[in-house]
């Protein structure tokens, strides 16, 4: 079978997807798959959106009742349809799926920005734990970035304590 994109090479990569609920197979060659990032770890909707220009409903192996946010009842298939989460707790529920998406979008998976005052203690605790694990795994660059941010955060707390 010829590749669905270049129509020339032998199709050796097979992708399953569904458009408007209908199951379809997409067979492409390795060159086209690489060129269009089809062998990357991107979630399927991103790929099908790119290929078909429609918001396609992905083939979700889990039966209903699995991978559902217990807070807002969003299903994984809802997330894959819209690429929007239902509530803040969805970040825990769909952690694996979101992480894949973040890897393709963001330079890092650690927040280094502003921290709300009431979250500062939790942030410091988190950074301290990360600092230990990054140092243990010899990720020194990441460990240094966390150490610097930790220092700055402690400094911010001291300053606001002085003001109040």
């Amino acid at each position, binding site marked *: 079978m010829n590749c669905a994109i270049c129509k020339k090479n032998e199709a050796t990569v097979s992708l399953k997807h569904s458009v408007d609920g209908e199951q379809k197979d997409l067979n492409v060659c390795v060159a086209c798959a690489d060129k269009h990032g089809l062998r990357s770890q991107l979630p399927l909707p991103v790929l099908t959106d790119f290929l078909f220009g429609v918001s396609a409903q992905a083939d979700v192996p889990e039966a209903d009742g699995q991978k559902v946010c217990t807070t807002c009842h969003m299903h994984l298939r809802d997330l894959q349809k819209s690429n929007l*989460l*239902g*509530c*803040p707790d969805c970040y825990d529920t769909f952690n694996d799926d979101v992480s894949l*998406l*973040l890897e393709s979008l*963001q330079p890092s998976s650690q927040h280094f*920005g502003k921290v*709300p005052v009431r*979250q500062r203690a939790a942030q410091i605790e988190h950074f301290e734990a990360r600092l230990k694990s990054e140092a243990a795994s010899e990720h020194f660059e990441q460990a240094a970035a966390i150490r610097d941010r930790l220092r700055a955060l402690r400094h911010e707390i001291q300053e606001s304590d002085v003001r109040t």
Partner: protein
Amino acid sequence: MVRKPGSWLGMKKPTGIVISSRIRLARNIEGVAFPGWAGEQERVQLLTRLKGCFTSLASMPNTLVLEMAELAETDRDVLRERHLISQELAERGPGSALAISSDEQIAIMVNEEDHLRLQAIAPGMQLRDIWDKINAVDSEIEDLFGYAFSPQLGYLTACPSNVGTGLRASVMMHLAGLRLTNEVEPVINGLEKIGLTVRGLWGEGTEAYGNMFQVSNQQTLGHSEAQIIDAFIDLVTEVTEHEKNARARLAESQRVNLIDWVARAYGLLKNARIMSSQEKADLLSALRLGIEMGYVGGVDIADINQIMLMGKTGHLQKSTGRVLGPEERDTLRARLTRNKLQNAKLLE
């Protein structure tokens, strides 16, 4: 507010290649479903909780809260044309609102894609100043409501592409020189390669008319707000330098052609009786360049910014108080432009 003729774009503060700066922060309230997933009742309840807080913020005095469901379509058009609300918010019903400071420099969209989209806007290149402003508003709201936040991912947003700082910095740039030297496309491609988004303010991609481009950062996680803003400013400064160079080269090697382009636009803008919004945007680009390069006098950039705004459909309809057909709009747009340019003179 929507009846007021001016806005920050019409300020008598000169803007150059960077027409305006904007920073927006995406924020959500903990324990509440994001607006796209929440029911109408939840959205209305959240707006009720938030409304009281907006009018008591010290960093955002004289705030007006406008609920989308209560606004006429023309009023929503006016807000959209001033870039105070998005198309998405304009289309939303009960529970969605805009809280806006009296100078229109701080605008908070409620229940758009996120619970809160805090925006600060200013003419020219003022990204660091407006970051300070919006940061202060953000800190005040944060004291009153708990934000959805994770030590790992930062501020949690409906779309993972905004998670982390939730910060999007953007500038509106006038790149007429680069367009004339056919360099606008490589510059845009270069910016996109290093992770910025560039789109025509009107029109699509590099086919933007009026030579107006909106440039913004894409990445929101992994760097601090100051790092994101500093890196963004560096890149915008670089583009500004490219544009200045293009203008200088044009003035030196193609001076007559350049002045001819400006003078033709001047003639049409001062005399035409019918003018579409696209034609007006393109001609104003030439006139804007003419003013900045000293070929046109008697009118300043703030006037051009005002003409740009008042010729838009929503503003035209608001000024006449009725719905206008396309022909009526084109005639009125041409008349308002002629009147505003009465004192304009060609200096070359």
